[in-house]
């Protein structure tokens, strides 16, 4: 069923610089399998040989390093990091000399990135292999974030750190599939790849939506054929995954993007007999923390990420008080973060293993009823992508009517945006109102029963 052929593609070597015949066989296996879905896109690890070695070293460092800071006491690396960022990053250089301490750095938010992301890229970052991660975030403003294949690969180091706490050491290598990423959307970026630091174990990003498959029953057959060691997804794709009669469960599930409610988590753990890691992760930051019920929150995962909790005025709050999660550091050398306000809220507590984010809020999955079926809020995002609106809310009433709320300055776009949503929900199903809320807006809301699956 493959619509994607590899060898004829001149960019194949660029996507897989170190690909061996075994790796190619893995790609062929995943694409040519008789139950394979329609892979819509192409991607690759893009890692050069020396970067594969560096990735292994990075994973070893992250595995053992401590998140070594305590309440209100910034770690030793912060001072040099602030000075280097003020020297290398245009946005900070324009502010003048570096301040004496981190608390004197004015926090930035997603709006600052949206106003000019190029200002946040350090001078020394080469651009020839730059990639981007597109994000709409919870405020709905589309943004291209600069990144690099090395940065993308580093995600694995933090997932492995989280898995290792549960005694799971990912081991699938040559001839095996390591990771499957699940989506469940009308439109989904799907592709196959291999992970060179894991001896070219397979990696597939696929869409469980029926439209991507010749036969919906192929979904379970294909997942059993791949037998991935790790399955990653979000609560919505996992809700669909739960329904499939797969017989070869993974060793762990990793949930990102949205709040994983305890009920779904329990069902997943019972159904697949493996732990479910709920990772708090942001495109701007990468994996930040992993939820541990015994700790009552998300244990921080990045040894080089300092977290503050700020009040509205940007002042640090003491441990135990709720405020905005604000991060400094990170592993994306294309976008060093200095007091980046994430838009998410929590309190900070400290345990034997390190800092913990308690009561994390800001993200909540919503699904909508459209023309008799459930659709994902990401499909709504896709429908609204063409429109430059920074604040909106799509609300489904208990009677299934849909209300699109737009900020006053976006009202001229209302007819076009309403038409875009009507293509999903039906011609007369969508009405428009003015959004009165200031600041961060909860984008997706619903009073319809079953919306929060």
């Amino acid at each position, binding site marked *: 069923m493959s619509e994607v052929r590899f060898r004829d593609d001149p960019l194949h070597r660029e996507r897989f610089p170190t690909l061996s015949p075994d790796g190619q066989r893995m790609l062929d296996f995943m694409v040519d399998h008789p139950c394979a879905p329609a892979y819509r896109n192409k991607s690759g690890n893009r890692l050069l040989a020396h970067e594969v070695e560096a990735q292994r070293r990075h994973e070893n460092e992250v595995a053992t390093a401590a998140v070594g800071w305590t309440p209100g006491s910034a770690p030793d690396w912060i001072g040099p990091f602030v000075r280097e960022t003020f020297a290398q990053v245009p946005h900070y*250089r324009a502010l003048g000399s570096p301040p004496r301490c981190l608390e004197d750095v004015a926090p930035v938010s997603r709006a600052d990135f949206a106003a*000019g*992301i*190029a200002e946040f890229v350090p001078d020394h970052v080469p*651009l020839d292999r730059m990639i981007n991660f597109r994000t709409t975030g919870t405020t709905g403003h589309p943004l291209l974030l600069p990144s690099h294949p090395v940065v993308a690969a580093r995600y694995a180091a933090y997932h492995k750190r989280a898995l290792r706490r549960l005694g799971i050491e990912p081991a699938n290598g040559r001839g095996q599939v390591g990771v499957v990423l699940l989506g469940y959307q009308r439109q989904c970026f799907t592709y196959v790849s291999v992970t060179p630091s894991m001896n070219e174990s397979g990696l597939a990003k696929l869409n469980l939506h029926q439209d991507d498959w010749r036969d919906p029953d192929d979904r379970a057959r294909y997942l059993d054929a791949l037998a991935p060691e790790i399955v990653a997804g979000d609560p919505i794709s996992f809700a669909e995954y739960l329904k499939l009669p797969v017989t070869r469960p993974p060793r762990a599930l990793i949930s990102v993007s949205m709040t994983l409610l305890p009920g779904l988590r329990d069902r997943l753990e019972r159904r697949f007999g493996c732990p479910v890691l709920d990772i708090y992760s942001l495109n701007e930051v990468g994996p930040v923390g992993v939820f541990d019920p015994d700790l009552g929150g998300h244990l921080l995962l990045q040894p080089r990420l300092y977290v503050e909790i700020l009040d509205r005025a940007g002042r640090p709050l003491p441990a135990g008080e709720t405020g905005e999660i604000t991060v400094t550091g990170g592993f994306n050398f294309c976008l060093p973060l200095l007091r980046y306000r994430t838009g998410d809220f929590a309190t900070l507590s400290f345990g034997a293993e390190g800092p913990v984010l308690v009561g994390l809020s800001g993200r909540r999955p919503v699904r909508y009823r459209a023309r008799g079926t459930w659709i994902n809020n990401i499909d709504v995002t896709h429908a609204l992508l063409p429109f430059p609106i920074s604040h909106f809310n799509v609300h489904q009433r208990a009677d299934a009517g849909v209300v699109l709320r737009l900020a006053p300055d976006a009202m001229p776009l209302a007819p076009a945006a309403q038409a875009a949503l009507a293509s999903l929900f039906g011609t007369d199903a969508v009405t428009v109102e003015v959004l009165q809320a200031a600041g961060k807006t909860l984008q997706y809301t619903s009073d319809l029963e079953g919306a929060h699956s």
Partner: protein
Amino acid sequence: MNQLGPDLETLTRRLADTPPDFMDEPRVAGSGRVAVAALVNDLAAMHGGPAPFAVLAQCEGQSQRGDRNRLAVIMIGTWLLADPWFLAQQLDPATLVEVLAEVAEELAATPAHRFAADPERRDELARTVLDRLGFRPAGETPEQATDRLAAISATERRRLLEASRSAEQRAREIREALARKVAQESADKWTRE
């Protein structure tokens, strides 16, 4: 530049010895510790009178990007203008702080702390302040003083202009790199947010 001023070295040495308090964080939009308006008013008082309201208003920072560095230059300038030589000149306090505000505006593209840490920038700040107050360094003719200030200022302006052009080009290249099709393809992550 008609009046003979102090030995330039005494001023540049003073700048090199700027106390940490004068390089602390200016208060801008609610953050920072130093109320620059109060500092400037103190300087005016040392010279015998209050600072004009218009100058004090300029010392209230509204935005980090627009004001932080300019205010930091003012702070270092207040330390310079509190030098005993200036105090002995019986300068008009209003004129003095107006000149300080103008010089800070003029030099605000350079990171403020370089006016304490970098010998050339110390020279530039000291010469500029003297010039705007109608003085020249001791031992220099008016022509020499004018030429030396022009040379040092022109070099810095050229550097800043070149840096500005490079920054614009770099920003354009970054936007182009992010928009490339290959950049859209992305690369493997174990999870996707």
